[in-house]
């Protein structure tokens, strides 16, 4: 037993991994992690994987518009759109925007929520009162309309979703982390640290934060799925950035071009599937975290 303990506390990297505690034990979570790995690699290597520029209008060898080609035809793996764009390349580049939106939004939600939760829970009093009333306000904001309003007031951009999520969705993370901090604050070792003269900052960073990190990651991983779905909804509703290729934009494009009526399944199924896969992968991972954090729920 002593050996394993020494391992988990040895190097800084090992310690971070021990703190994050990737839920590899759970088969669903493992599947989620694999899906994530594939999409992350795809997103990073998009320029090398995608055969065409996703917004380039393509022509066939005989100078016809390469429009509405079915999968496999003329070297287009998933076919082309009505405007002659390569669907496979769009999916690949769409992964990039999806993951960009997902991860930045998740980071903002986890980061802001954790800070709010730590401050409110640790200091209590008026700090707690102010932050929690702000959370109540955030709970009162209908999320999707809020994103639409933000998009309407600013330039259409995928970052609108990220900003809106950062402004609104920290509330859940903040509340949960606050209650966790409240119970940690009364733990003997936290009180002992106060008695031996450790500053509040030191206590928060060294005694409390390591215990709430897995919770932050849980809420972060939930936020990834939320962000991708939100971005897709916004794009589908037409408030998205027309220059950024995203899966939501692809669905909107397909819908506007009446691909459904023409039974061009090859156009809207791939982006739909991609969204479902990545979003459910996110939830699988968060479920894995839940089982790690609250082992009894699993049984």
């Amino acid at each position, binding site marked *: 037993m002593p050996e394993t303990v020494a391992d988990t506390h040895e190097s800084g990297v090992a310690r971070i991994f021990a703190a994050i505690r990737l839920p590899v034990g759970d088969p669903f979570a493992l599947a989620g992690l694999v899906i994530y790995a594939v999409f992350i690699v795809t997103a990073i290597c998009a320029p090398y994987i995608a055969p065409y520029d996703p917004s380039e209008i393509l022509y066939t060898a005989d100078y016809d518009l390469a429009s509405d080609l079915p999968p496999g035809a003329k070297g287009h793996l998933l076919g082309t759109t009505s405007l002659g764009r390569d669907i496979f390349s769009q999916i690949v580049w769409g992964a990039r925007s999806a993951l960009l939106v997902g991860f930045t939004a998740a980071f903002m939600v986890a980061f802001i929520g954790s800070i709010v939760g730590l401050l409110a829970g640790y200091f209590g009093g008026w700090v707690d009162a102010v932050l929690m009333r702000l959370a109540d306000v955030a709970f009162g904001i209908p999320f999707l309309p809020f994103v639409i309003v933000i998009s309407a007031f600013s330039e259409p951009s995928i970052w609108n979703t990220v900003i809106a999520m950062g402004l609104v969705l920290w509330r859940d993370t903040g509340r949960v982390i606050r209650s966790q901090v409240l119970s940690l604050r009364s*733990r003997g*070792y936290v009180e002992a640290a106060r008695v*031996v*003269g450790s500053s509040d900052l030191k206590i928060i960073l060294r*005694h409390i934060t390591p215990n709430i990190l897995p919770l932050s990651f849980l809420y972060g991983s939930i936020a990834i799925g939320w962000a991708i779905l939100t971005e897709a909804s916004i794009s589908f509703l037409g408030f998205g950035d027309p220059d950024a290729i995203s899966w939501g934009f692809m669905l909107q494009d397909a819908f506007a071009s009446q691909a459904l009526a023409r039974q061009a399944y090859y156009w809207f199924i791939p982006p739909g599937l991609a969204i479902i896969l990545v979003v459910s992968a996110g939830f699988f991972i968060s479920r894995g975290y839940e089982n790690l954090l609250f082992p009894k729920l699993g049984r």
Partner: protein
Amino acid sequence: MSDPIIELKDTKLHYKIGNAVSAMMGLSTTVKAVDGVSFSLRKGESVGLLGESGCGKTSMGRILVRLEEITGGSARFEGDEIGDLKGSDLQRFRSRSQMIFQNPFDAVNPRYSIRKTLEEPLANAKISRSTWHQRIIDALDLVGLGDPEQFLERYPHQLSGGQLQRVVMARALILEPDFVVADEPVSMLDVSVRAGVLNVFRDVRDRLGLTAIYISHDLALVRYVCERTIVMYLGKIMEDGPTEDIVHDPLHPYSQALVAAVPTPHVDQSHDPLPIGGGAPDPRNPPSGCVFRDRCPRAQLRCADEVPQPRRIGTRLVACHFASV
């Protein structure tokens, strides 16, 4: 007589609880955890705070290491109001006034090695890093952990309760404090190792000339480590005096019940029914007058009207209208 190191005057710690509904139902929304307590400690004195759960003994201890801020009266450490300490004064207080916690398994960060646990106070007190190792070794040695080197890189779950409680003591003592509060330090430990921790406590206290408060519900343990005992009930002091006097001739009816209730490891002990019945009342609604009167076998009308003030009877202070030698 030298100046007291600890001085409490009419100290109060009241919590606000409940809400408008409970207020309407006639339940007071204030819990008086500590309600007008006065006593002082001379340097080097050891005092037991004795009482049942909810009597305010733990709150009392927490006030003295500033884990709790008083809501009335005064609580002074060497003449300075503890709640008003700031900046470097507070930092100095933190290194001079320490606490030994009840549950050793909770009182150390499970992610910290023993070395790291003991380094925390040294770092806070800005002790020169080159001396850390020696001081840690000395502190572990002081609390009777033989061959201290072997413990440094271990983690809390690799230690037994008795060993861990010694580490907690070492952390409290490493800055050589003047004053220590021990909050039921052996109640979580197994019987066979309790005696060891108690002996270390007694030994270290004598060796360092510590002023100490030992919080417990067990008079037998208090008797073992403290020459003076303060008996508390519902936030108030009932009796305060030399431990041996209280053990052999308790004057307050509550102390009498406490002494009679402690079983002893002999078969031929008294099985007489206790002089008092019932349990401690709801701390939100204590009785008027003397807080103990509804359980007291000697209570009279006067006890409901008039709060008994502590009176000096021989070596002791007793808060009872009718106590006498």
